[in-house]
């Protein structure tokens, strides 16, 4: 099993969620983060003082998937989150040793 983590542009979240559903992903966990990268920050100006806010708002997704679904999941995110412009974000694939569904106590692929 894999834990797939993705950092994407916030307004792409809905599209990504829909693609993941189509790809057969049954769940995900999402939160807002501040991203730093090539995209560079935003300049905010308060009372004439410029603030180089180097962090930009991004959304972080975590999806646990079986090994078979890992490829399609990455592909689904990649396609749906793509705009072609700098700052589209990254996908990371991390190995997972075990998964547990708290409700039933199921383990491994059954728990996903």
């Amino acid at each position, binding site marked *: 099993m894999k834990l797939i983590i993705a950092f994407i542009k*916030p*307004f792409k*979240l*809905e599209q990504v*969620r829909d693609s993941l559903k189509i790809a057969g992903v049954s769940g995900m966990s*999402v*939160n*807002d983060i501040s991203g730093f990268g090539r995209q560079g920050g935003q300049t905010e100006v308060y009372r004439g003082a410029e603030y180089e806010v180097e962090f930009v*708002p991004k*959304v972080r997704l975590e999806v646990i998937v079986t090994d078979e679904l890992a490829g399609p999941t990455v592909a689904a995110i990649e396609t749906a989150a793509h705009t072609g412009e700098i700052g589209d974000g990254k996908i990371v694939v991390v190995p997972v040793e075990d998964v547990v569904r708290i409700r039933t106590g199921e383990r491994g692929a059954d728990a996903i």
Partner: protein
Amino acid sequence: MDTGDAAWVLTSSALVLFMTPGLALFYGGMDRTRNVLNMLMMNFWCLLVIPILWVVVGYSLAQSGDGALLGNLDMAFLRGLGITGEDGGSGLLTVAFLGMFAVITPALISGAVADRMKFSAWAIFAPAWLLLVFVPVFKWVYGGWIGDRGALDFAGGTAIHVNAGIAALAAVLVLGRRRGWPSQGHPPHSMPLVMMGTGILWFGWFGFNAGSALAANGQAIQAFMNTFLAAAAAGLSWGFVEKFRDGHFTNLGVASGIVAGLVAITPGAGFVAGMSPIWIGLATGIICCYAVGLKNRAGYDDALDVVGVHFVGGLVGSLAIGLFADPAFFGGEFMAGSFYGGGLDLLGAQALGNAATIVYSFAVTALIMLALKATIGVRVSDDVENSGLDLAEHAEAAYSTGSASLAGH
């Protein structure tokens, strides 16, 4: 009606209307994120249903006629309240002004029942309580047997704060404690909302108290000054009790003290003068700061301290009139307080009035709550209490700020 008096009472009425949203924010800020909207709605509900109830029958039952116990229906549906007659509309204006008080009094109780009461039960409770408790007590105090005994209540210490405060106690005793209380606590979700609510309440309370002179006269001016000083003094003394007892001068302590001081000066605002509001305020801040701890010892779950602030504060203030009332200053015909040569008569009258209010309000409120409990039920399910009332009762969320949480359909 004199235009200056009309201008001031119109202004005061608007100020008192503004207090209910202010109270909603004050309470809502103290609540948890997931129950904020339920708290706001308990207050706004009073703003919707009570104005209509008030003009239809409430005011008439509360003020019309000579009954010692209850008014009559002569002024139901605003009958006879015109603007072209001799009074130039002052009767009508009084209905509006007092209507604002009718709105906020049951709203005060909402802070006690927070986080666990079914909204449908509250929706019935608020108007029922208004008619069965507020209206008769109001009549007794203003134009009924309590007032006749010389008891004083300028802007509603007995009729409003003691009344709503003791009702809050009865309500939570029937309702029961929140799951996890008192072992689990939860800090205010937004202190800036609490402080803003406090500011609005103080601002509006000038209308509440100084408007109760029903004229832009000297009594209004002194009531204004008293409202200014007592709130400051009580905020100060509450803050210092916390500083010395708990180690810090806190915003919530100061806010609570200010509100307690406003409550306490309400009954005497038009009867005391000089440094009296400062003494009343200082005493109230100290007493109420300790009083809010009572619930933990006595075991009733008064979520946002309506009993400790409104009941205790109102009672302290109402009894304080027995000490500080100063008819000479006002050129008024009321009894003097003990410190102003008046013996114990006024104090006795105050005690009697409050005692009667406490007994009646507690009993009838408990009955209303028990009736609701036996019929539609008063508590949300454990599930709803765990996950929050906003979503379950109102299908809304207070905040949807993140992108993640925004991802709707």
